[in-house]
């Protein structure tokens, strides 16, 4: 039987997960200083807490990298305000929030309670992706322990504020990681994004002012309150402070999650922590921050992990999911597999995304099968241009940006099936079985609704 995941050992820079194995029991967590930041926070005012967050310059860990302190300061006033924790983690390549929940659930709960205290929230809902059944159960267990220990469901540490925390499980939809889609889903609608305004800070969960943060962001808060915002800001770079979890996968010797200071580079991560590529293979490209980001090339390995560094290199840091691609990999299939995913996950609400992701995917499929034309490759680039930036949310961009980068960086390779009339890759190339030449499915003609 396959083994359970093996967690990476703590790195020298670990402040989120500075231990091997798990700390799921509240006693273990408290014995190592757990819930002390909450005690400290309860002695502070909301303004002081927001100031501390701003001082830390913590940038959201979900993908967009928006400063968490400023976000907290935007929350509209109101009687019923909610905290929602985004644990939908669905960007391909990303599995870091899961590791935090599996190994250190109480750190997340503590962060939630600090946040709740800060906003005097009517409740917190952890939106965790539906597939994370075990992780949801672990969170439920941790909440039960925190409740038994007096942190939840009763006046908090001698104050008259009563925090409540609930786990809300998704049901399998990537788009629910997008904040407005997540809130639609939590509100019992189809998980489709909504136009902004109104922003979640004004009308979010249950149509009330809502503060929405990623699991890792919230789990980092006890660290910041514990060490002080300024001290935290001393780690990493000026614009990208602290440490961050990076999910390393693909063709690398030691895949897994690694906590890295944001001053490190992709080479530190891939070659250093990851041990480089397996014997005999060479790096073809790497995805720097989840499959929705433009790929980077081997000569960009020394790019910094910091948000600003990745932007300067022509991509984005996103969720911190790094997928390593070796020289055997067919980039037509890689592009097709990427596009297929976003087509599958398009919510269908706005026209360019719904139709564009399908068109991009089917054109790539045609290319992969050797039936495409060079005109269609140019058409693909034009469709990408017309999708990107014109959609209701960024899912359309998430399809267009990487596909454009695949075509631009590997134009020759993408054109090869056009010249040959077939995909030139050998049968043992990665993903070969997903696109078998003999069983190649015809283009879908009929969709039975």
């Amino acid at each position: 039987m396959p083994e359970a995941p093996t967690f990476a050992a703590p790195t020298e820079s670990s402040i989120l997960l500075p231990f091997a194995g798990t700390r799921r029991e509240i006693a273990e967590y408290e014995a190592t200083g757990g819930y002390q930041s909450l005690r400290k926070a309860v002695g502070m005012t909301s303004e002081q807490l927001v100031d501390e967050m701003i001082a830390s310059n913590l940038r959201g860990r979900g993908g967009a990298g928006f400063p968490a302190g400023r976000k907290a300061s935007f929350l509209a006033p109101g009687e019923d305000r909610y905290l929602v924790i985004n644990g939908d983690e669905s960007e391909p390549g990303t599995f870091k929030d899961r590791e935090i929940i599996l190994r250190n659930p109480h750190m997340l709960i503590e962060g939630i309670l600090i946040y709740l205290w800060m906003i005097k929230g009517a409740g917190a809902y952890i939106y965790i992706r539906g597939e994370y059944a075990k992780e949801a159960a672990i969170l439920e267990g941790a909440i039960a322990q925190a409740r038994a220990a007096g942190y939840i469901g009763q006046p908090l540490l001698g104050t008259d504020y009563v925090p409540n925390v609930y786990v809300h499980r998704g049901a399998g939809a990537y788009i629910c990681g997008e904040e407005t889609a997540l809130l639609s889903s939590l509100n019992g609608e189809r998980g489709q994004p909504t136009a902004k305004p109104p922003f979640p800070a004004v009308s979010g969960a249950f149509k009330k002012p809502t503060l929405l943060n990623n699991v890792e962001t919230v789990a980092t808060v006890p660290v910041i309150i514990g060490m002080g915002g300024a001290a935290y800001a001393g780690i990493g770079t000026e614009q990208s402070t602290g440490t961050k979890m990076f999910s390393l996968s693909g063709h690398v010797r030691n895949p897994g999650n690694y906590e890295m200071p944001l001053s490190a580079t992709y080479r530190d991560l891939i070659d250093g922590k990851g041990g480089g590529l397996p014997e005999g293979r060479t790096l073809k490209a790497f995805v720097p921050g989840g499959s929705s980001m433009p790929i980077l090339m081997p000569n960009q390995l020394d790019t910094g992990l910091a948000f600003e560094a990745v932007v300067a290199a022509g991509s984005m840091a996103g969720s911190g999911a790094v997928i390593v691609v070796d020289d055997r990999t067919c980039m037509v299939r890689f592009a097709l597999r990427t596009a297929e995913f976003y087509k599958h996950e398009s919510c269908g609400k706005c026209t360019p995304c719904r139709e564009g992701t399908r068109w991009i995917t089917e054109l790539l499929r045609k290319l992969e099968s050797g039936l495409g034309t060079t005109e269609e490759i140019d058409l693909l680039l034009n469709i990408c241009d017309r999708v990107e930036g014109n959609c209701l949310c960024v899912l359309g961009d998430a399809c267009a940006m990487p596909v454009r980068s695949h075509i631009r960086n590997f134009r020759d390779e993408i054109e090869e099936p056009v010249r040959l009339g077939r995909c030139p890759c050998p049968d043992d190339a990665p993903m070969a079985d997903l696109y078998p030449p003999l069983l190649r499915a015809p283009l879908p003609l009929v969709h039975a609704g």
Partner: protein
Amino acid sequence: MADLYDKIQLEVAKYPNRRSAILPALRLAQEQYGWLSPEALESVAEALDLSPATCLAVASFYDMFFLQPVGDHVVEVCTNLSCALVGSDKVLSAFEEELGVPCGGTSADGKITLRSVECLGGCGWGPVVSVDHEYQEHFTTEDVAPLVAELRVAPRHTSESHA
């Protein structure tokens, strides 16, 4: 069924409005009925005071709800990039061969439904196979036959509890 109605009311109590309980309610109904049959959706609709069509609209949006009957066990192979790069395509092929059905189908004995799914969030530990919503990681083609043999004799999962 009355007990489903009561279970759903416990979920409703966690939210300021009943509609927010639709995902937990659909999950409970699927556990009870095996899939979200029209009858199952009508039960959810009744418990939440929503239209059955609303329940259908929401259920059909999400990959984890089954609007067609499935086998006693559901085997889902992640075929997204990270897993596909490390061989999940071969694992999927092996399942197809072992079960004698193409991806999406249910074995002739009605025991096992095979699906390919998008990223499950186990990318560093791939290939990932989810069996009745429980992950098995570092899954190889050699693991296929033993798992199928085990599932063929195992009763249907009725609870998702993994605690």
